[in-house]
């Protein structure tokens, strides 16, 4: 049998490798071939590791032949966003300041994937340090949407979304600070989940905004995401914020969810003016299709809609200004030294030379928001509003089990053209609330706009209810085939 990763689910692929119908080596070779065919144009990967991937696949094939079980993801190729640390493989965060950096350790999610038998194929492009929603701010290459190569793939996990959408890998990891898994998933026509804050260890994820960052995954179907999430989630002694609130056995709890008993909320008010008419129409249609499949559909409250992006960006930039102070030209970054300017000059010239425009802008604004005299006005006030947002959302999620809203207000925009920062920040209006409140959320394909671009539907549930999200998404994907559509060729 000839392996074809472009049409195969993770579960199907893992089953066929375990059954000996295809080998892990053949599967990795098929992915590498696909990457060589399409990635020169699409630009999803920053680094591909053919030698390491083929060596790992060979070992898995030997283990399978000798009757040992190499794990639930045996032989499954996985791509990783390039802000996730990989021992021996470069990790750049798409920034010049980390060019050439090779981590001496694996992130916990990478270690868990390897222990489950997954094969790390390479590292994918992103907005520099995950600061963006288009993948335009990568210092290294442009990533294009496979549905229309003149459009952005979204971001910041744009490379991971493209790698899955174009069939280069069946599944990829990303990180989601304000929508960076869900938004590119929606714009590229794949499924993406951001788990509850703390459900997955962030050890080895290069920190952008620690109270918002969460590793998530992108794949073709909800069940694929469930399988991968069950492997990477759980408490980790190396991340004190992991496992907060506890997490159950995802695959077992998923099976126990009865979709017919779910109470679904939606927010028709958001569809009146805030989104493109085509997207509003697809969301209304999806809710109507689900109405007879669930216990109830009610109108939900969507709190502080006009303020969410301001609150989010104050907090994200404040935390970024602190987190990125570690990039100083001393321990593991590029260095720019100017004679007679001493250590402070080294810091300043290194950061000024190697950070891109958007990263510098966010560090400056975050520093301002945290500085003496401004702290209460910006960071303090945003953190208090954040409490109100979380309280309101958690209260709403006692009344309904899932809230359905759009993932994005528009489909993928053109790559070329002027980018107004405030306008760009406001386009995250539907995704940031889940990060502010720490809630699990996912995006699933729900149709196409008149211009042929994919549209995503966002599902949000209460803390640690990934089982509800994935069950409803799985049910939706049994009712529809949007998730099976593929861009050609």
């Amino acid at each position, binding site marked *: 049998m000839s392996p074809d990763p472009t049409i195969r689910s993770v579960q199907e692929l893992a089953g066929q490798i375990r059954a000996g119908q295809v080998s892990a080596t053949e599967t990795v070779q098929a992915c590498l071939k696909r990457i060589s065919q399409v990635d020169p144009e699409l630009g999803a990967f920053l680094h591909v590791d053919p030698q390491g991937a083929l060596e790992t696949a060979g070992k898995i094939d030997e283990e399978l032949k000798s009757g040992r079980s190499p794990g639930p993801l045996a032989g499954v190729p996985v791509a990783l966003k390039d802000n996730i640390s990989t021992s021996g493989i470069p990790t750049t965060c798409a920034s010049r300041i980390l060019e050439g950096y090779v981590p001496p350790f694996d992130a916990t999610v990478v270690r868990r994937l390897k222990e489950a038998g997954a094969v790390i194929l390479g590292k994918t492009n992103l907005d520099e340090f995950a600061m963006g929603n288009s993948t335009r701010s990568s210092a290294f290459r442009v990533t294009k949407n496979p549905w229309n190569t003149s459009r952005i793939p979204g971001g910041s996990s744009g490379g991971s979304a493209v790698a899955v959408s174009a069939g280069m890998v069946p599944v990829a990891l990303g990180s989601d600070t304000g929508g960076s898994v869900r938004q590119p998933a929606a714009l590229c026509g794949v499924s993406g989940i951001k788990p509850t804050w*703390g459900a997955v260890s962030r050890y080895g994820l290069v920190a952008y905004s620690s109270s918002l960052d969460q590793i998530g995954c992108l794949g073709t179907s909800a069940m694929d995401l469930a399988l991968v999430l069950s492997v990477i989630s759980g408490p980790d*002694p190396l991340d*004190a914020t992991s496992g907060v609130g506890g997490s159950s056995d995802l695959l077992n709890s998923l099976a126990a969810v009865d979709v017919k008993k779910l109470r679904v909320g939606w927010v028709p008010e958001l569809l009146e003016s805030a989104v493109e008419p085509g997207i509003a129409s697809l969301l209304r249609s999806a809710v109507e299709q689900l109405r007879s499949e669930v216990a109830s559909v009610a109108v939900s409250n969507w709190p502080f809609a006009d303020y969410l992006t301001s609150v989010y960006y104050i907090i994200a930039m404040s935390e970024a200004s602190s987190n990125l102070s570690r990039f100083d030209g001393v321990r593991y970054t590029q260095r720019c030294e100017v004679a007679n300017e001493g250590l402070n000059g080294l810091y300043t010239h290194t950061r000024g030379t190697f950070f891109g425009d958007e990263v510098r802008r966010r560090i400056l604004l975050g520093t301002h928001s945290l500085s003496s005299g401004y702290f209460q006005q910006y960071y303090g006030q945003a953190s208090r509003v954040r*409490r109100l947002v979380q309280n309101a959302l958690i209260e709403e999620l006692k009344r309904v089990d899932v809230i359905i809203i759009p993932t994005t207000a528009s489909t993928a925009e053109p790559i070329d053209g002027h980018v107004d920062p405030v306008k760009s920040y406001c386009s995250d209006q539907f995704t940031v609330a889940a990060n502010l409140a720490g*809630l699990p959320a996912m995006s699933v394909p729900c149709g196409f706009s008149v211009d042929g671009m994919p549209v995503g539907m966002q599902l949000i549930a209460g803390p640690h209810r990934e089982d509800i999200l994935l069950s409803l998404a799985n049910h939706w994907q049994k009712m529809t085939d949007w998730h099976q559509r593929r861009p050609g060729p």
Partner: protein
Amino acid sequence: MAEPSIDLKSLCNLARLPPPDSMGEEQELRSGLQQILVFFRMVDAIDTENVEPLVQPFQPGAGTERDDIHVQGLARADALANAPDSDGHHFLVPQVLK
């Protein structure tokens, strides 16, 4: 709403970033940052009296602290492998005391 004030020189110093090279660049940077600060100040409209700030979504529960036991950290050679300058034992930086 009054235009947000920014002391760019002090801000760049705090952020360890170089100040703009020219008056033109300074003007452009200042105006861009002020536009975003106006966007930030939308949050002023929310009444947050007696509201406690939320600094992370959930607080760690019991059992998140491990026992105080020695564990092996990075080997010295691994820790220094990515350093721009080292003597095999330390990270090297420009002379601080002269």
